[in-house]
């Protein structure tokens, strides 16, 4: 069985690249940090990779809007190459700033680069109107098609963002996402029920924390699974005597396993 390879794409302002690489390695994959400048000249820069990860950070300072400059760059510089990677069945995960970038290209939720002005969804400032770092609990939808998660499972990890509130162009867009299993994670309360602030840290529509494309292979989420790789990352590990692995590792392992079984 070959070891799946993940490209961790970085540019100015990317800052969760090292731990995201570590997460894929811990999950049994191979991973490399690659600067976007390296991809421009290469005809098929994704040829050797099964997974593309867009890690968290503040690409280009999040000026204009979070992930926006990076999204324009991806669209214009890597559009065709990335489309080919998607059509070949490659996996893409965007975490936090990576999710913001994916949604601003149109790759989420539509698996293709959107023509200017036609995007279906976006991420805007939190209702609290400030950057906040706090742990959240999420539950995967029972019908999710996302290959990175176990349907119906619950998971805890930290969120750390200022622009994480999901908005859809219309109610219909949201209903379609739900019906097609593209809503992956929703924030839930500690008890498992409907969350209120700050259990839902940003006021997302329908408390959505992460979505995927129709194939389930392109996945974006605001919270950070790569920050819950070990039990000691959990804020209550000393209370609950947690040891061993952290829950966030499951996401990376699922991706690696998916590639191994393809």
């Amino acid at each position, binding site marked *: 069985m070959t070891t799946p390879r993940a490209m961790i794409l970085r540019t100015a302002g990317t800052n969760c690249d090292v731990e995201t690489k570590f997460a894929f390695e811990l999950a049994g994959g191979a991973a490399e940090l690659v600067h976007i400048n*390296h991809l421009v000249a290469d005809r098929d820069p994704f040829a050797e990779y099964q997974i593309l990860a867009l890690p*968290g950070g*503040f690409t280009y300072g999040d000026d204009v809007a979070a992930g926006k*400059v990076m999204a324009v760059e991806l669209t214009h510089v890597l559009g065709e190459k990335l489309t080919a990677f998607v059509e070949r069945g490659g996996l893409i995960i965007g975490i936090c700033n990576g999710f913001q970038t994916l949604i601003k290209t149109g790759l989420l939720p539509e698996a293709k680069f959107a023509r200017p002005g036609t995007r279906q969804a976006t991420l805007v400032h939190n209702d609290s109107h400030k950057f906040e770092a706090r742990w959240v609990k999420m539950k995967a939808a029972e019908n999710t098609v996302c290959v990175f998660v176990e349907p119906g499972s619950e998971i805890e990890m930290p969120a750390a963002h200022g622009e994480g509130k999901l908005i859809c162009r219309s109610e219909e867009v949201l209903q379609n996402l739900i019906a097609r299993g593209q809503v992956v994670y929703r924030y839930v309360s500690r008890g498992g029920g409907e969350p209120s602030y700050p259990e839902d840290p940003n006021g997302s529509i329908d408390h959505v924390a992460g979505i995927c494309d129709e194939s389930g292979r392109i996945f974006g989420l605001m919270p950070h699974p790569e*920050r819950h790789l070990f039990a000691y*990352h959990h*804020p209550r590990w000393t209370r609950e005597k947690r040891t061993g692995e952290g829950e966030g590792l499951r996401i990376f392992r699922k991706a690696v396993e998916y590639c191994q079984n393809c």
Partner: protein
Amino acid sequence: MTRDAGLDSDGRGVLAALREFGLSGVEEARLVRVYICAGDFSLREAENIAREFLADPVVDMFSVNGFVTSSCGKHEATVEIIRRVGVMDPAEASVLKGIREIGLDAQWVRTARKYVLRGDVAKDELKSAALKVLANEVIEEVVVGRDVKALAPEGEAYEFVRGEVRLDGLNDAELAALSAKGQLYLSLAEMKTVQEYFRKLGRKPTDVELETIAQTWSEHCVHKTFRGRIRYREEGGSEELIDNLLKSTVAKVTRELDKKWCWSVFVDNAGVIDFDGKNGAVFKVETHNHPSAIEPYGGAGTGIGGVIRDPLGTGLGAKPVMNTDVFCFGNPDTLPADVPNGCLHPLRVLKGVVSGVRDYGNRMGIPTANGAVCFDPRYVGNPLVFCGNVAIIPKDMAKKRKPTSGQVAVVCGGRTGRDGIHGATFSSVELDEDSEMVSSGAVQIGNPIEEKKVADFILRARDAGLYSCITDCGAGGLSSALGEMGEDCGVEVELDKVPLKYAGLSYTEIWISEAQERMVISVDEKDLPALRKLADEENVEITVIARFTEDKHLRLKYGGVEVGCLDMEFLHEGIPQIEREAVWKAPRHEEPKIAEKENYGEDLKSLLGSWNACSKEWIIRQYDHEVQANSVLKPLQGELHDGPGDAAVIAPVLGSKKALAVSNGINPKYSDIDPYHMAASAIDEALRNIIAVGGSLERCAILDNFCWGNCDKPDRLAGLVRAAKACYDVGKAYGVPFISGKDSLNNEFGVGKDTICIPGTLLISALAVMDDLSRAVSMDSKEAGNYIYLVGTTKNELGGSLFYALHGAVGNSVPQVDVELGKKVFAAVSAVSAKGLARAIHDCSEGGAAMAAAEMAFAGGLGMDLEITPLAGDLPTHVILFSESNSRFLVEVPRDQADEFVQVVEGQGAPVRRIGVVTNTGRFFVTRGGKQVIDESLTDLKAAWQTPLAL
């Protein structure tokens, strides 16, 4: 462009701020984001830029060259805020890049915020409100009612003229006037030394030579006070001559302890200790007070940016892994009328500083995991902003290096602009109401993404072995960086080669600008091509600006003409040592008479709700404290993640169990009684916090940061001497070396003839290596039925306490440090956590044992029953509850491990008493001799603690 009204939270925030300011007629405020883009493109192309890039199609509306909001006639006003020409706009580069990706080319971009207000608003009122709450005039222009002029962000052309200054024949008064007029801030003795130097050379100095000397000899750069001679005496006592306070106190601890695990101390930008045999842990804390007083957001941001560059410029360059931040502000509820002219309101300073730290630290991807905030009215004119950075460096790269002759100096990163001129000299003087105007040039705005790029580039170039020596551009800019790098060999600088943000800078401005995000490295010429390739890959600009020579001179050239030539030895060693007098007169404060009461519940709630003790969650949550996935113990702990942790614990090498505990100790109130005990207590507190999270003193190092008043005044200097003496006594006794430190003096604010002087403030930051992160202990109570023990001794030490402050008193019985007792207590608690016997540990500091116990209880969401009789002796109840005696801990222990716990503690000779039990009643219940003295619900206690700073 503007956003759907329902999503315009900026607009709502502005509405609230304006109404709070008194503009009650405003009914609605909307934010319009303005991008002024200059370029050769058609209207249609401009619309494409807006549609595809600047606007979000799901939520934004936009208009090119028009108005995006519909007008509703006369009940509308607009106010537009734009950065002044020449002030850094970090967004410009990103917007230019986005436009370029679309396939168009813009020459320049400026961004502005426009607020469209509906309701009844008078224009003049609006302008003053905008200046107070929406903008900062130092860096921004406010325009009411019309559109901003689209000025290009470029300067005028510069015409080169070599400038000379006549010193020969100037008398004392003329020399002093020259120093003041040129913002050199050199003393008369120093001016005379300079005069003599050039008299011997038989020529006039150039302007840039004088500036270079002023920068190099500034208090900020050479620490004249600490290195000078001091005649110290206590009132009625005999005189003691101290030659170099730093060497005879702080640095002496390190020298005498001579720890093998100290890899690099006091010789580099930051201190380095052995972390895991392969890597060193690097730590530096410094202040950025003066800039933060004038422009809190930019000042604090560049404070963080600056301190990150210190470890990055230590040895061959270290990787930053954590930030710390400690602030001292005036009280947030200060009446506007009580804020002196020229000062910003403390709440505005607080919010600006927090935003600055947040935006810089978060964007750099460095977790901000430890900090503290102190409040005192005397910080109103001189807020203190301490920024710290911890980093990791491979062992063989940890030592300070020097360049060799023939190598070239390469500046990497940000371009040089007119920002931060005279920062080093300005930060070494007193502020007054005119400071804002005189020194706006000293303000710097940071660009964290530029610094992130530089850091990424530097670490790659380091690992590729492409440079041999590195330093940062901090205070004094290139002047300090190259002056210091070339100290041993000499350096020749071509100032016209330095890349500029805009034209118009004189060679002197280029030389002393403190523009941010620049590092200087020394490179063998053969490595330049590889270095350039790497820089291109990381989008970092690098430029060769100088060559290291052999003649031990600093030579400055502009366009081939020599504009400066100074002997390195004179520059670095020529400063005359100052001699000052210090006289200590112990203050006597009125001793409050406090009668015993039946119930202390209300007092406890008042203390929990005091500015100094209350929850800082509003601040902490805005910092990313978990990026890099190295977090082991977070700043907020407990069942609901909201209890106050004692120290941060991080595991900076992914996958390794080795950890670092990072803490701080600060209590300026004790200075009002005796700075000696203030300093001793700060050390004890920083170390207590390390011990409380499961650490030990075995491999623990500390940093000092002194912030003081004007040390020309003998009483201020005496306080400083006393604090430094305590550093020696306590640091030495505890066996913890100082590895780095900094001082910021002249923190006095002139109001008329008087000054407001800050309380003598010493921040001690501690860094300790933990072998096994699984031994970390959090402070929240864990389980009903577990016992609560107090380890240590409670004494009648309420002087300077929060409890006395609540009663409007200072008192005299300041907490002292009994190092012999402290050593036993620390060893005992370390042994307990090493054996895994403690479920929770919390140190007793401000507010005493009662406050510590209450915090443990509500953080754990469990009740607590305490009986304080075993501690009593003859002490009054309020002393037992609220005394702030040092070296004390509360420890939660499971019943079945209680015997072993007591054995371990007593085995180390530390005093220990069982004082209670964790319950599941949800109440905090304290008795003395069976008689109830506190009975409060945890909900009420927690609310009292959380409410004040829930902004």
